[in-house]
């Protein structure tokens, strides 16, 4: 069938049919292919990107590329100063930040409470002690302050409160979490940590989509250390950002090989993300592929109908072509070339839309999901596979109807007989 001569004549016929076809019709078919391509790539890309957004937020706002945390048998990373000093000597390290962490209670409106039977305006919270400057350099925490101000170097008795702890920003009450009411920047609140109570000022509110941070209170590390009754410099977390292009797994191995694993749990940011997130990502990818498959079938049917109608209306001319000795294979190949043209042109326009507008557009303006800033994940390889699928499907969908018409009796086709 695919002799060079048939391909040559098929290409010749296809080229002329396409060149002299209605531009509106061609444009419409290419537009359908473009939508199909976007449906194939974008649906899955958004669903995966939704979870990828969580991962990326975790990396940029919390864990960095590699995070060290206290061993499960310890409350802190032993010998933190020497660990930090060692890490700073390593070549791939760009930034790091140290954090203290402890549990505590925060209470508001305790001064206006009239009786002991009245439910206190209080909730449990994770309290994170930070160096405000180092933390902001690392996570840009200051950019997440939506009310009030970020902590300044030397601040004392000032805290930042995560949005889930505030009634005006929380989704509602969760087990063990009763968001604070009537708290605004400048409001005095009471912190209780390990039985020690201290009155502090809510300097600002932090809004983030990372649960661990949204349910946290940030305060200067030195003050938290005092409240915890700690005199050493051993922190609970060290988050490390690597130079772009570095391999977090290789860096983790380097740390483990250096013996740091005996003092701290070493995880890459993907290790530290809860397993459920990876499972959701897989599920969403499957869902996306499911939706895409439906899109592919719709595209196949569309092309089948378009080519079928085209071939039906040109049945007489197909008969004439066969009558004057043009092989059926060459005629079928001409329809394959036309289908290829539609699929490739649609995909090419789709690639421009995808990588020229959608991907950078969603990086600059992520989709605002309640739990993630959704981006569009479209790896080049996956996109290539989808284009291949689309082209194959289209070629088959274009070939079948042309074959049906070409196989009809030549004279019946010429005379328009059924």
């Amino acid at each position, binding site marked *: 069938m695919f002799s060079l*001569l048939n391909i040559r004549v098929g290409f010749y016929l296809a080229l002329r049919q396409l060149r*002299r076809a209605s531009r509106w019709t061609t444009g419409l078919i290419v537009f359908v292919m473009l939508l199909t391509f976007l449906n194939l790539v974008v649906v899955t890309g958004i669903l995966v990107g939704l979870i990828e957004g969580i991962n990326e937020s975790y990396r940029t706002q919390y864990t960095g590329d590699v995070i060290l945390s206290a061993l499960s048998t310890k409350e802190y990373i032993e010998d933190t100063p020497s660990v930090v000093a060692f890490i700073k000597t390593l070549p791939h390290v760009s930034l790091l930040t140290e954090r203290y962490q402890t549990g505590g209670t925060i209470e508001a409106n305790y001064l206006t409470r009239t009786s002991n039977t009245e439910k206190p305006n209080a909730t449990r919270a994770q309290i994170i002690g930070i160096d405000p400057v180092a933390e902001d350099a690392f996570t840009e925490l200051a950019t997440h302050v939506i009310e009030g101000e970020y902590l300044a170097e030397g601040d004392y008795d000032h805290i930042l409160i995560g949005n889930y702890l505030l009634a005006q920003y929380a989704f509602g009450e969760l087990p063990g979490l009763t968001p604070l009411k009537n708290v605004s920047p400048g409001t005095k609140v009471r912190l209780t940590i390990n039985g020690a109570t201290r009155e502090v000022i809510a300097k600002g509110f932090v809004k983030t989509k990372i649960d661990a941070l949204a349910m946290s209170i940030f305060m200067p590390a030195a003050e938290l250390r005092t409240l915890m009754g700690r005199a050493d410099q051993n922190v609970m977390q060290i988050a490390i950002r690597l130079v772009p292009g570095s391999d977090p797994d290789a860096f983790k191995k380097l740390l483990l090989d250096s013996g740091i694993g005996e003092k701290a749990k070493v995880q890459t940011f993907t290790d530290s993300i809860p397993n459920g997130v990876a499972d959701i990502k897989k599920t969403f990818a499957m869902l996306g592929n499911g939706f895409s498959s439906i899109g592919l079938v719709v595209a196949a049917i569309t092309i089948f109908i378009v080519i079928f109608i085209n071939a039906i209306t040109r049945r007489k*001319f197909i008969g004439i072509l066969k009558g*004057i*000795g*043009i*092989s059926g294979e060459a005629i079928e190949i001409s329809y394959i070339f036309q289908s290829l043209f539609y699929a490739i042109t649609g995909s090419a326009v789709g690639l421009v839309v995808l990588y020229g507008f959608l991907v950078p557009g969603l990086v600059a303006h992520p989709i605002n999901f309640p739990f993630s800033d959704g981006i569009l994940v479209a790896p080049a390889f996956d996109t290539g596979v989808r284009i291949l699928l689309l082209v194959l499907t289209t070629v088959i969908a274009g070939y079948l109807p042309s074959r049906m018409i070409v196989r009809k009796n030549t004279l019946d086709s*010429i005379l328009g007989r059924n």
Partner: protein
Amino acid sequence: MTTNIIEVKNLIKSFKDGPTETRVLKGIDVFVAQGEFVAVMGRSGAGKSTLLYQLSLLDEPTSGEIRINGKDTHTMSEREKMLFRLSEFGYVFQDYALLPELTALENVALPLYMQGTSRVAADEKAKAALTRVGLGSRLGNLPSQLSGGEQQRVSISRAIAHTPDILFADEPTANLDLESSAIVMKIFAELHKGGQTILMVTHEDEFAKFAERIIKIDDGKIISDV
């Protein structure tokens, strides 16, 4: 001694429509010598076009024997018939049967490409064929930009560009005015003078006169062969 290029023996063609069988050709015997110009005449429904379709291998007869250049067409595969139509035959249809998206030159050159002729050589041959019928200046025109007579001349060019053994013409003047018809018949006469075998179906006496032999058919049988 002249050789027969077409030999037909006891050709029968029937059409079935449910239980009803209509016999259109009822045992035709005919021989056409190489270089002959034969006109097939008859009233509407007599079977003249059906005979042409059988001889030109566009249709399959119910029974009987057709030999073209001594080859029994009954034993040919579909592919062999296609190749035969491509290289041995030329067709001129009543309604010109040009491909609307191809220019005059492209319409004529297409069968030559299919024969494996190079693009340049095919275009040259097509150009020569179109020039021969007086359309040398209309090579780049689409069929929609040509008159009926011009389209029929393109159709003739396509039929003769590859110098076929037999030229089949099915009522080539039926859709043309008198002037255009005269031009077309003049071209046929010139082709015949050059040794081209022509088998033409027509119902018009004045054009049948261009042929050297007239076969008249009625009710599926040859009633005269002069």
